[in-house]
C-alpha cells in the first residue's frame, strides 16, 4: 500500500495584485523512487499549472532547485520522498529575492557576490597562444577543483544566521570562492588585495562560526576549513595593518 503524501507548499505571487503568502496543500500517492523533482512536476501538471519552482539539470549538478524541505535547506531534485514523513513542507530559500512560490532569484545574488569579490584569476601577463600551458602539480589542481565544485545553490546562505540578519554578508560560498583563488598559483593577488574584498564585517569577520553552511552543503564542501583558513590569513593581514613595522 503506497503512502498518501501531503505537500504543504508556500504560495505567493508578488506579480499578482492581491496575492498574499499562504500555505497550500496538495496530495499525491507515493510511487517507487519518487523524488521532489518528479513530485512537484506532477503537482504542476495535474493539479496547479501556476505553481512556480526552479529545476534545471535535475541531477544535483546545476544548483537551481534549492529550497527549504521540512525546515532544512537542500536540493529538491535529489531528495527522495522515502526519506521524508507523510507530510512534506516546502518553503522558498530565505535570503534571496522571491520570484514566486518556491522560486527565488539566486542568480542575481551570486552574480553580485562574484563581482564584489572580483572572482576571477588576476594575472597581468597576456595569454601567449604559442606557449604550452604553465605546469601545475596535479595535487594542486585537485585541491582547486575540490573548492571549485561549489554549485552556488544558496543552501549555505539560507542556513546562515549572519546572512539572515544582514543582507550584505558575503557568506560561506564567497569565502570558499576566495579560498579557491588563494590556492591557485595562477592568481597573482596578494593577501592585502584579498583583505580589501573579504577582510570586513560583510566578509570573513562577520561569520559567527555557527557552521550551518557546512551542515547543509549538498556538495559536502569543506566550508569550515575554508572559513578558518581565510579568517587566519585575513586576521594576520589585519594585524599587519596595525603593526606598521611588520611590513603590511
Amino acid at each position, binding site marked *: 500500500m503506497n503512502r498518501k503524501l501531503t505537500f504543504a507548499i508556500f504560495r505567493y505571487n508578488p506579480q499578482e495584485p492581491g496575492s498574499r503568502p499562504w500555505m497550500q496543500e496538495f496530495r499525491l500517492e507515493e510511487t517507487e523512487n519518487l523524488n521532489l523533482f518528479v513530485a512537484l512536476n506532477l503537482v504542476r501538471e495535474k493539479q496547479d*499549472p501556476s505553481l512556480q519552482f526552479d529545476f534545471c539539470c535535475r541531477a544535483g549538478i*546545476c544548483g537551481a532547485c534549492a529550497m527549504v524541505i521540512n525546515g532544512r535547506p537542500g536540493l529538491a531534485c535529489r531528495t527522495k520522498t522515502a526519506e521524508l514523513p507523510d507530510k512534506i513542507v516546502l518553503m522558498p530559500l530565505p535570503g534571496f529575492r522571491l520570484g514566486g512560490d518556491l522560486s527565488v532569484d539566486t542568480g542575481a545574488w551570486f552574480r553580485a557576490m562574484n563581482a564584489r569579490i572580483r572572482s576571477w584569476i588576476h594575472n597581468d601577463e597576456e595569454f601567449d597562444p604559442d606557449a604550452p600551458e604553465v605546469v601545475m602539480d596535479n595535487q594542486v589542481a585537485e585541491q582547486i577543483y575540490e573548492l*571549485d565544485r561549489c554549485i552556488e545553490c544558496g543552501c549555505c546562505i539560507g542556513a546562515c544566521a549572519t546572512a539572515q540578519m544582514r543582507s550584505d554578508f558575503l557568506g560561506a560560498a564567497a569565502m570558499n570562492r576566495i579560498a579557491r583563488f588563494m590556492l591557485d598559483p595562477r592568481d597573482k593577488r596578494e593577501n592585502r588585495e584579498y583583505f580589501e574584498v573579504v577582510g570586513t564585517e560583510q566578509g570573513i569577520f562577520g561569520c559567527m562560526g555557527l557552521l550551518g553552511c557546512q551542515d547543509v552543503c549538498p556538495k559536502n564542501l569543506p566550508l569550515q576549513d575554508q572559513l578558518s583558513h581565510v579568517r587566519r590569513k585575513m586576521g594576520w593581514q589585519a594585524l599587519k595593518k596595525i603593526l606598521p613595522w611588520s611590513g603590511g
Partner: protein
Amino acid sequence: MRIIYTDLLCIGAGLAGERVAIEAARAGFETICLSLVPPRRSHSSAAQGGMQAALGNCIKGQGDCPDMHFQDTVKGSDWGCDQEVARIFVENAPLAIRQMDYWGVPWNRVVPGKACYFKGGEKLEKEEPRDRSGLITARDFGGTAKWRACYCSDGTGHAMLYTMDSVALQYGVQVHDRTEALSLIHDQERCHGAVVRCLKTGELRAYISRATLIASGGFGRIYRASTNAVINEGGGQIIALDTGGVPLGNMEAVQFHPTGIVPTDILVTEGCRGDGGTLLDVNLERFMPWYEPDKAELASRDVVSRRMQEHMAQGLGVKSPYGDHLWLDIRHLGREHITSKLREVDEICKNFLGIDPADSLIPVRPTQHYSMGGVRTDKDGAAYGLKGLFSAGEAACWDMHGFNRLGGNSLAETVVAGMLVGRRVAGFLQEEDMRVDTALVRGELKKQQERVDTLKSSTKGDPPFEVRNRMQDILMDYVGIFRNEKDLHLAGEKLQQVLQSAENPKLSSSKAGADPELSLALRLPGMVRLALCVAFGALERRESRGSHAREDYPARNDRDWLVRTLAFWPGGRALPRLEYEPATKVVEIPPGERGYGGCEVISAES
C-alpha cells in the same frame, strides 16, 4: 514597452554563448547575454567527462596531433561533417584549452611514474615520463585513437563554465537571466534583435542589436526520456526556424548516449568506460567485444547504443519496472578512483539510485543526449539566410559532428567555435551598421503580445502539459534509435495533429507574472515543429548514417545521401520544406570504413 539597444545580443549564456560574448566585449562592444537560468546553471555545467584536444601530453596520448583528432572526428561523424570545419576545429582545440587553463580551469595534470589503468576489464600498467609532469593530462574516450579527453575529475563542464562566467564578469558582459526570446526581429534580410519575455515579471521587451547570436544549446527535451536539462527545449532553433528563411541542418541526427541511468535518465559519463568500465547483460556477461572486437565499449556512441539496443532485443536485457536495461560495471576501478576521478558519477549513483558504484552495478540504457542538428551556419558561424544572425555550440549546425558526435567534442566545440565565431562577430560589429526600423520592432512586439493575449483568453483546447507529453511520447515510440518508414510516417501524421492542439491550447491558470503554463504554451508549437523537422528529415533520408539508423535502409549510401538536410519552415505550411547541400565541399578524407559499427556502404562510385 521597453526597448533595449546593444551591439551584441547572445541568446544563451552557456559556454558557447559566453565565449562569443567575451570576444565581443574584449573588442569594446556592448554585449548582453539572455539566459533562461543564471548562466552558471546552463546545461554546459552538466558535461562531465572531458574536452577533446590533441595535446599528446600523457603517455597514452603520445604522438597525438590535430591530424589524428581530425580523422577520428570525420570517422565519428560517419562522413556527415563539413571537413573544412572539422579541420579548423582540431587545429584550434589545443589553443582553446590552454586559454581556458590560463583563465583558471583546474585541469588534471600528468603525474610522473608508474600507474595502473583498466582497459575493458583488464588491468594494465603505464608509466608517465618525468618531462611531461604537470602538463594537462587526458583520459580515454570512445571513437578515438589516443587518450585525448582532458578533464577536471568528472565535473569538466562545471569547472569550464564557472571559469568562463568569471571571465565574462571580468570583461563586463551583461547578463539578463530568466528571460526567454520569443521571436527574432527581422525584415527577411537582416536580423535586428529579438522580442523577449522576462521570466521574472512576464513583461515583453524588445532588444535591438546589430549582431544576434543563438547559443541556446540542444532540443533534447522534445523526447520524453533525455539526459538533457529541462531547459533544453530548442528555444533558439525555434525562433530561427520561425523566420522562414533560416534553415536547420540535419535535424534527424539525434544522439543517444549509451549510459543514461534507469530510472531518471541522468547521464553517467563516457569516462566510466574510458577509464575501463564495462557493459554487462542479464547474465552479467560482457557483450560489446562480441559485436565490436576492436573497440568494444569504446566504439562511437551511435554504435554502442545500437549494439545495446540489439542485445536487449535478443532478450538479454535486465527486466525492471521501468523497462529493460543493461549494467555498467565500474566496480573494478576501485573506490579511490571512483571518488576522485568519477565523483559526480559516485554522487549520482548514491543520490538517485541509492547504490555505491564501487560495489554495485549501475543500471543503464541508451538515452537521448545530443542534437547534432541545429541552426545551419557557415564556417564563421553566420546563419544561412539572415544577415547579422550567428550561432554557436550545440544550438548550431556548424557542422563538425555530422551524424554522430564523439564524446568530449562538444565541450571542445563550445570554446573553439565560441572563440572563432566571437572573432567573426567582433569583425562584423566593427564594420556593419544598421538602420533601426521602429515600425518593424513595434510590429513584432505587438505580434507577440497578441499571442500572449490570445492564449490567456482561450476558452477551449487541451492543457499545454498534456499536449507536450503527447509529442514526447510520439518521438519516443516512433523516432528512436532504430527507425523505419512505417513508424516515421505515423510519427509525422500524429505530430501534425499535435501541432494543431499545440497552437490552440487552453490555459487553466493565466496568472500574472511568469506563469509556467503560459511559458510552455508559448514555446510548444515551436517544439512540435522541431519534432516534425526531426521526423520528416528522418523519413526522407533513406539510408543509415551515424546515429540515423534505418531498418529498411541499413546501408550508408554515399552515392545518394552524402548530403546535409536543410529544413525550412515558411509561414503557413503544415510541414517543413527540405533542401539538401553537399555534406562537405573540402574532402581531405574520402568516405570509407569507420573501423567499427560494421555498416554496409554503398560507395559514391557505384
